[in-house]
């Protein structure tokens, strides 16, 4: 899709979008039909960014079509009977829809214009039952409503988000380059770009033909320069199933030697895709010798660069290249928070958090370090506002100008004054506006006054609604000795956020930290705590059994492992579902399965290695470090929980036995995920650590 930033109508579109949305919200489901018609007609009028004259003509045709379909719903007629400029507005809305829906949902939406016929067509094309096709149509409609439903329709929108459709929306990372109308629009441009690649790159035709030959149909292409081109292709379903890769793959075609800047460009493409591509996988097609080792030496964030060597005498298939490369990369290993398709599990939490922020609530997201708090909140902010990631290069169709997410990390605040916190927020806001290619001026400093001013200007100019996420919030309340010492003036910021939330319904706050201790206090630095009665606590602990299984099997698939029931069960006992530790265990399986074996055989069975992997896991540095951190925190802040866990891990007591006189500690341990499962077991990693490193002498000897 064209980047509106280059369109002279861009600013106009932005203004029109807001009013179009309000109007559409009144129409309900049937409004989508009108939207679709408006879009198609506008495009048929000859331009992706139609002029007023073109739009007027389009609107005339729209009226005609709408009248023809008046039998369906009088509201369609009402919605369709719009002036030319409104036709454009609707077209913009549809663009946004296209950007936000995944391929299947969009296809369904398009075909749902003629509902019965659409269902039949979907069923026939996809080889599914009409009931399934109907379901897809419903999902698409719901998804559409989730996008457009605003203003008066907030409650409906929230309800939708709690439905399964919201999950579909939230968990698929949508792009503007999808199927349906979007791809129809793109097809000419794509064809032209592919022709340019064939002309500009000696191996261009060969690569594109090979991709098509292996059913990796190009969906997007871009000539970066005479040396580099990027081609995205729709991953064949069989590959997705076999290799656990994303629905699209990125092929980086390089003439001459691959340079680090080529991979940087690929990286930009990955993020600009809205993380629809695997964020840690790129295929590099190149005919220079020694491609594999050259790629291995290249700098860049951890990712698998699959060498697709074109220069060898025997043609290498892409499937062969994937088959050879995937088992060489430990996809489990990931110390920092993950994004995009690496977010596995947590669907319920994501849905809950998303719902709450849509309702402009304040949410406290609590849990021990590395349990996935940041991953969770970024999944939500990435979806609501892709530009909040701080990356530039987003096509602004994929960014709603009025949905603004700000993520700041309180540990980055340099001085203990609210103005420093506000400056961090301003900086995040300025980065976000820049990433969204929105020229709205935001200063990077100026403290709380400047932050208030910027946000309030955006309320007016963009009708903006904000999600403000503050990670490691404990840093705002504690000094280095762990004593309560709120940042000076912090309460003023919290008051302001609450006021915005309550009077405008336009600000949601998410605070991420270890526990709600500071947030539940009646006063902060002598003033009434503005968070009281506003903030809802969400405690994040381990993944449940299904999610743990899913994480291990999906990642295992990518790495050429069949992670079966035995390994999964062992992993859950060991980790209690702690996502980072599940990955550590997965890494051990990966090492053991692939140690000393060639890569000819795809999908090695991991279960025979489950016990050896468990031993390696328990002895692994990362496991010990996480156990150390847990014990450090418990020692410093929750000695009663530590005592409880020791009683269970070393003394052989059960949580049920201890609940009578340690009820609070039991509850806290459950909230932290340190007691898990029906029998409130202590995860084995922690039990082992407690036995070996923290037990008093007698207990340790007994445990010995």
């Amino acid at each position: 899709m064209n980047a509106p930033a280059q369109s002279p109508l861009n600013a106009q579109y932005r203004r029109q979008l807001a009013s179009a949305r309000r109007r559409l919200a009144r129409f309900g489901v049937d409004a989508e039909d009108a939207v679709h018609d408006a879009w198609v007609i506008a495009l048929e009028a000859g331009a992706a960014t139609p002029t007023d004259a073109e739009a007027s003509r389009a609107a005339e045709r729209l009226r005609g079509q709408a009248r023809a379909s008046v039998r369906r719903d009088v509201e369609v007629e009402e919605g369709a009977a719009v002036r030319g400029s409104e036709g454009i507005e609707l077209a913009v809305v549809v663009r946004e829809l296209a950007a936000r829906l995944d391929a299947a949902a969009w296809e369904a939406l398009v075909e749902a214009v003629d509902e019965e016929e659409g269902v039949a067509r979907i069923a026939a094309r996809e080889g599914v039952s009409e009931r399934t096709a109907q379901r897809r149509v419903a999902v698409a409609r719901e998804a559409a409503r989730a996008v457009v439903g605003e203003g008066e329709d907030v409650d409906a929108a929230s309800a939708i988000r709690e439905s399964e459709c919201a999950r579909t929306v939230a968990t698929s990372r949508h792009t503007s380059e999808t199927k349906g109308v979007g791809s129809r629009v793109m097809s000419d441009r794509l064809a032209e770009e592919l022709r340019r690649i064939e002309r500009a790159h000696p191996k261009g035709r060969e690569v594109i033909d090979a991709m098509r030959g292996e059913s990796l149909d190009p969906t997007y292409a871009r000539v970066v320069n005479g040396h580099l081109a990027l081609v995205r292709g729709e991953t064949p379903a069989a590959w997705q199933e076999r290799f656990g890769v994303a629905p699209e793959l990125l092929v980086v075609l390089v003439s001459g030697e691959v340079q680090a800047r080529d991979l940087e460009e690929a990286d930009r493409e990955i993020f600009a895709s809205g993380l629809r591509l695997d964020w840690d996988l790129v295929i590099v097609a190149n005919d220079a010798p020694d491609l594999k080792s050259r790629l291995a030496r290249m700098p860049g964030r951890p990712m698998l660069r699959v060498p697709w060597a074109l220069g060898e005498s025997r043609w290498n298939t892409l499937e062969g290249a994937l088959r050879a490369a995937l088992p060489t990369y430990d996809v489990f290993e990931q110390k920092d928070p993950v994004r995009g398709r690496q977010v596995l599990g947590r669907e319920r939490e994501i849905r809950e958090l998303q719902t709450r922020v849509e309702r402009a609530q304040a949410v406290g997201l609590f849990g021990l370090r590395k349990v996935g708090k940041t991953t969770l909140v970024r999944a939500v902010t990435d979806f609501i506002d892709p530009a909040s990631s701080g990356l530039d290069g987003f096509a602004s169709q994929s960014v709603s100008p009025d949905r603004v997410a700000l993520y700041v990390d309180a540990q980055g605040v340099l001085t203990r004054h609210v103005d420093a916190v506000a400056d961090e927020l301003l900086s995040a806001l300025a980065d976000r506006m820049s990433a969204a290619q929105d020229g709205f001026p935001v200063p990077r400093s100026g403290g709380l006054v400047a932050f208030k001013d910027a946000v309030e200007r955006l309320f007016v100019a963009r009708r903006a609604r904000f999600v403000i996420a503050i990670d490691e919030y404990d840093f705002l309340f504690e000094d280095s000795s762990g004593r309560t010492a709120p940042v000076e003036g912090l309460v003023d910021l919290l008051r302001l956020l609450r006021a915005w939330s309550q009077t405008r319904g336009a600000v949601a706050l998410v605070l991420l930290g270890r526990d709600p201790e500071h947030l539940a206090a009646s006063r902060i630095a002598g003033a009434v705590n503005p968070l009281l009665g506003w903030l809802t606590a969400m405690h994040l602990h381990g993944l449940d059994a299904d999610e743990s299984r899913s994480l291990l099997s999906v990642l295992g698939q990518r790495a050429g492992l069949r992670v079966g029931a035995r390994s999964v069960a062992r992993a859950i006992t060991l980790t209690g579902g702690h996502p980072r530790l599940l990955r550590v265990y997965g890494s051990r399986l990966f090492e053991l399965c692939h140690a000393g074996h060639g890569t000819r055989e795809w999908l090695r069975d991991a279960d025979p290695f489950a016990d050896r992997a468990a031993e390696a896991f328990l002895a692994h540095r990362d496991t010990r470090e996480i156990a150390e951190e847990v014990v450090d925190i418990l020692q410093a802040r929750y000695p009663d929980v530590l005592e409880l866990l020791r009683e269970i891990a070393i003394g052989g007591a059960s949580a049920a036995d201890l609940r009578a006189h340690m009820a609070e500690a039991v509850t806290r341990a459950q909230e932290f995920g340190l007691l898990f499962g029906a029998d409130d077991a202590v995860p084995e990693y922690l039990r082992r650590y407690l036995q070996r490193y923290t037990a008093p002498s007698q207990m340790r000897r007994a445990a010995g």
Partner: protein
Amino acid sequence: MTVDAARNPYEWDRHDPMVQLPRTALVDALYGAVLRGLGVRLVGGRGMGKSVTLRILAQRLREVGGTGVALIEGPPLAGTLTACLDDVAKALGVPTGASSNLREVVDAATRTHGFERVVFLFDEVDQYVQRRVDNEPLGRVWLNHVESTRRNDPRGRVGVVAAGGLGLLYLEHVIGSHFASRAETVAMTPLSREELVELAAPFADHGPPLPDGVIDAIQVMTAGVPALVTFALGALWPLSTAGSADVLHVFKRFRRSHAGFIDDVRSAVTHPDLFDAPSRVLSHAQSHAGAVSRELLLEACTSPDSSRSIPLDRVVELLQAAGLAALDGHPDDDPVAVRALASVLTPPSSRARAATVSDRFVAEVATVLAQMHRLAKSFYAKGRGLVDEEVLSASLAIGLDALGWDTDCEPVQVGGFVDVKARLRDVPGHFLIEAKKYSNDDAADVQEQVDHYRVSDTKHAVVVMFGDEIPAKTPWPDAYTRRCLAGLTVERMSDRPDLVAHLRATDARGRVTDHLLVAVPRR
């Protein structure tokens, strides 16, 4: 490695020495991590080569296109966060005072210089920890800010290495640092004997290569700590030939002129303002012969009020990275196979109380030997067995030197000289030590040899017999008495800890010689 033969290439206290080992594995590990946008803590004690390693890394990174490198040698004098930001901005070649946070500095650097990524290399992190800003440890606030910048850069453009010792442990486990918590760990390692030989290669261009005995003596007295090794090589460079006795002199001199360095090494593992768990663990490692009960070590890692404990594996890691200890198994084992490394950094410390100076001499020789027994593995060169007698003598002499004796050591090839001659200030006369390996053919003549060295002002003589191959069937003291003390009156003294036997031999002229039998097993 070729150097200008006229110029001494070894400069132990420079961060950019003329002769340096590439430390490829270490630098590779750091290089790979920072280019992937990770944080790394580089753990090492004083003199372990952290600063040199950071410089090698910086040089290598600068050769990668599009990489901005900010090598920060320590906290700014002003000790403020603004000064920290300014230092970084200056190192990256962007205006100072223009940015309110590190992200802006990174952005400015990428804009100005077209960098694709930026790597921060922070040296002397322990000093950051000890400074305070707004009543907070500078190290915590600053490194958290750095970590926030690294972690929140979505493309992983920011890599960080923070190099330090005890401060890193303190950051992570006492005051809490998210940098330390998420960072990868790369630990410095002492130089192996092979690396030492490689570092000494320029001697071959300059004159005769250093003999094995000298290499062994350097290894034994330095435990492979790079700064000490370089100091020794620099001091030996001007000599036309060098022997292990020269190594003894080098380190006697070092101890007197660079006492501050040794104090710094210790402060890297214990500090009154931080904590002393590593020092307590080291103390246990020194007083046990290579295996310490985990119980004891865990207690050493726990604060006296039991409110906090530091993970044992981290403590051991720090001691290893300071060249003070080695771990032969896994920290989960019980007992834990942690052992102190013999070197000038781990001298015996307890002085003996005795009625006479001669008794004190014998007692303190026994003290040094007891430590050599406990740290026996340090005296084995890989694949070559127990080091030569001259190296053992030199080690004995440097140990006595630490206890206040002025020692002198002669190379074995110089005929007619005893192995160690010791004096005590303000005490007339001298004391002799003849050291032998029991497996040597001339061990049987040891009494005769020591008697040969006695002169009129010899106050007392001691024979030290190192038992590398102790007879299995007959008790060693009995076998020794039959083989070496025939014809003498032999009294078995009460055995001293960690010695196999203390025998006192008196000849027909009433001359007394103490024979100390010590096992130096490979374990």
